[in-house]
């Protein structure tokens, strides 16, 4: 039999997270700080709207780009939050999660050999999506001393004549890093100067802490026409299972993305779209309530880890902290494996998000305080057993 597989897909490495998941699910009474989704249920009024849409028999396709009403709400939202104006007919499309938007943005823009700059540590799908389009991923290793922000110098050093796209993964999964307006301004200037497009994954935009509100790179001069803003409902409204995201950007690119979407997906789930309208219309208070909860857990975790002698920069976004575990004298993977074996606690090794995640682990605080306290006791015991105090 001939090899049924394509060369490009066999070259893509399986997700480093998958392996860990298999071990954890085998282990009885293991607890986990390893999830990348909110612990809250979708607020009831949003779910209720989904139920109602089913009762009404709204069980058909929507237009390819999604419900007009939802696109209108998204346009209002982006204007309200980031002062970004998009034409609902040509510049906004609803996707199956932010993930689909990432995929089709890359497919719409990358020619074989084009270089795509990916700052790491970052979400696991950027790299394979570039590989699948025969693009060339160029990794920037973000540094702890910069609080895992992308610096102008790092970006300049990574740019070549072949650079076409920069992926901006902020607020960041797994580090919790954010980019301030000042940080972004410099990056934006370089993108304009070097004629680089940006895929800005802003899925955690609602989850920032302290005074720092999320800024989109599309807000800067000359950036709107070269940026695909990607966002969705999963993190802000606790709607991961609804699989709903969106992309906003210039028609030139969006129209091609829509073509791929049209042929591969048709349209995002209709029930989810109706629920999402309700989320954007009446969900501000829910977001605020959940963000407050995350913030309390974040502060609590940081303090507790500090008291155990485990260092961590203060993350101001998403719901992760990314502590430095180098003083344990183990690799990230060894740390995670040992912690699981000895204390039955699962965390994700930093290396799952790029080689430069070595020496770090990702801890999610999308858990109740009760769950976090139990987990922290296990980390404390682990630290003690390994002579870290």
């Amino acid at each position, binding site marked *: 039999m001939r090899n049924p597989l394509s060369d490009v897909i066999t070259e893509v490495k399986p*997700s480093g*997270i998958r392996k*860990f*998941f298999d071990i*954890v*699910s085998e282990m009885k009474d*293991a607890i*986990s700080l*390893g*999830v*990348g*989704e909110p*612990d809250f249920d979708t607020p009831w009024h949003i779910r209720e709207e989904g139920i109602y849409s089913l009762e009404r028999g709204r069980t058909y396709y929507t237009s390819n780009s999604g419900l007009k009403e939802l696109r209108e709400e998204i346009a209002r939202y982006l204007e309200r939050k980031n002062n970004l104006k998009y034409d609902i007919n040509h510049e906004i499309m609803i996707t199956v999660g932010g993930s689909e938007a990432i995929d089709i943005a890359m497919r719409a823009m990358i020619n074989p050999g084009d270089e795509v700059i990916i700052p790491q540590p970052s*979400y*696991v*799908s950027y790299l394979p999506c570039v590989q699948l389009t025969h693009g060339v991923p160029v990794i920037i290793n973000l540094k702890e001393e910069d609080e895992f922000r992308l610096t102008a110098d790092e970006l300049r050093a990574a740019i070549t004549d072949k650079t076409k796209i920069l992926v901006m993964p902020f607020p960041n*999964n797994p580090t919790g890093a954010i980019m301030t307006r000042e940080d972004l301004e410099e990056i934006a200037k370089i993108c304009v100067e070097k004629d680089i497009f940006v895929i800005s994954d802003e899925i955690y935009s609602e989850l920032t802490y302290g005074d720092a509100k999320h800024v989109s790179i599309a807000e800067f001069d000359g950036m709107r026409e070269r940026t695909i803003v990607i966002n969705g409902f999963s993190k802000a409204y606790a709607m991961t299972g609804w699989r709903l995201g969106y992309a906003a950007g210039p028609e030139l690119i969006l129209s091609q993305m829509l073509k791929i979407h049209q042929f591969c997906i048709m349209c995002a789930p209709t029930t989810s779209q109706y629920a999402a309208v309700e989320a954007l219309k009446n969900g501000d208070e829910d977001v605020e309530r959940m963000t*407050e909860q995350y913030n*309390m*857990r974040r*502060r*609590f975790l940081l*303090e*507790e880890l500090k008291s155990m002698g485990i260092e961590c920069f203060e993350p101001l976004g998403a719901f992760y902290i990314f502590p430095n575990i180098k003083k344990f004298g183990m690799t990230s993977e060894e740390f995670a494996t040992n912690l699981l074996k000895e204390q039955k606690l*699962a965390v*994700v090794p930093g290396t*799952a998000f790029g080689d430069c995640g070595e020496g770090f682990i990702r801890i999610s605080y999308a858990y109740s*305080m009760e*769950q976090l*306290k139990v987990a922290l006791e296990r980390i404390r015991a682990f630290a003690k057993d390994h002579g870290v105090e």
Partner: protein
Amino acid sequence: MRKEILDVLERNSRIDLGELAKMLGQTEVAVANEVAEMEKEHIICGYHTLIDWEKAGAEKVNALIEVTVTPQRGMGFDKIAERIYKFDEVDSVYLMSGGFDLMVMIEETTMKAVANFVMQKLSALESVRGCATHFVLKKYKDHGAVLVEDAVDERMSITP
């Protein structure tokens, strides 16, 4: 800081103040002072425990009584409300808008005890013009806590 403290205490009044301080990014002393201050100002009026008496096997009968009253000159509803809330049997008394005046909630061990309270004490008050008593058949949710189901974390243990 007050609103944040209250938001947490409303759901969990037994929280350790050191833990609360860490959650709020404050010192324990500052949080303890603020709590003490709010107790003094009667912003915090008590720390109660939410009990599912049915599960505890205890007989409890809860009733909501809609009371219509004649307000007294110069006192409005306050005087009559006081006459009612002073009874030990009474859990809460609210002044209401709409078809009746006072919502009186009581908890007793038997239906007969509720009936006796309404007939002998409440209706006997001079300003009370009428009562409509409703018995609680089942509590699904109380003070924000769902009593009929347990929350289970059904998420996959590790996701990107």
